[in-house]
C-alpha cells in the first residue's frame, strides 16, 4: 500500500486538520490544489482511518481521527506511571544509603 502521507498535499491537509475540524472549501482555499483534488486526498485519508467526517448543518467537516492518538496516550500514561514508581524506588534507595551509618 502506498502510504497516505507519501504525498505532501495530504501531509499539508493533515497538518491543517490537526488545528481543528475544517470543511473542504477552506482547505482548498489555502492549498495550491483544486477543490476536487482536496476532496480526493480527503477520501484517501478517510480510507486509511486518519480522518473522519461529519455533517455540521449544510457543511461537511473533516477532522483528524484521534482514536489512534488515544491509544498512544494511554500507552505513554502507563509508561510514566511505571517509570515514576521506579524513580521513587531509586530515590528511596538513595535515602536508605544516606541513612545507613555503615555505608
Amino acid at each position, binding site marked *: 500500500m502506498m*502510504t*497516505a*502521507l507519501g504525498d505532501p498535499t495530504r*501531509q499539508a491537509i*493533515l*497538518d491543517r*486538520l*490537526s*488545528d*481543528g475540524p475544517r470543511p473542504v472549501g477552506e482547505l482548498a482555499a489555502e492549498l495550491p490544489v483544486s477543490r476536487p483534488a482536496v476532496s480526493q486526498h480527503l477520501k484517501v485519508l478517510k480510507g*486509511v*482511518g*486518519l480522518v473522519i467526517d461529519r455533517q455540521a448543518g449544510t457543511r461537511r467537516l473533516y477532522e*483528524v*481521527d*484521534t482514536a*489512534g*492518538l*488515544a*491509544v*498512544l*496516550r*494511554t*500507552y*505513554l*500514561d*502507563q*509508561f*510514566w*506511571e*511505571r*517509570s*515514576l*514508581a*521506579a*524513580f*521513587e*524506588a*531509586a*530515590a*528511596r534507595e*538513595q*535515602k536508605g544509603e*544516606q541513612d545507613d551509618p555503615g555505608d
Partner: protein
Amino acid sequence: MIQAIESIRRSVVVPVAQDKAFEVFTAGMTGWWPSEHHIGSAPIEQIVVEPREGGRWYTRHVDGSETSTGYVSAWEPPERVVVTWQIGADWKYDPRLVTTIEVRFVAEASDRTRVELEHRDLDRYGPEAERMRETFGAPGAWDSTLAAFAGAFEAEA
C-alpha cells in the same frame, strides 16, 4: 489551536531533598528508567541527560551504539527540567516530531519532594497515525503490541 489530545500529568512524592530528587531523576536516570524501554538494537548501558540547556538526552547501548530521545530545553536545578521527547509512534527518533516533558521538583520538606511530570504536545503525533499503522500492520495490532510492552514492564517489576 485545539488540543486534540490531553497532556499526561503524573506526580510522585519521594523521601529525599529537592536537589537529591533532581539528581536521581536526571544524572541517575539509568538507575530507574525501565530497561526494556529503549529504541536501540542492544540493551541500555547508560542514559545521559546532558546537564545544560541545549544538551542531548540520549541512550548509550552495550554494543557502543547511541540512540537519541530529545534535547534539554530548560535546565534549572534543583527546581525544573524540560526535555523534548522525539520518539515517533514507530519507535524511531524523529527530529521533526517534538513533544515536551516538563518535570518540576517541589520541596515539601527538607527530606521530601513532590515531583510533577507533564508530557505535552501529544497532538503532534497526529500526522504519525499512518506510520503507526505501517509499523503494526493492521488496526488492532497496535493494542496488542502495547500490551506486550506493558507486559515486559510488569515482568521486570
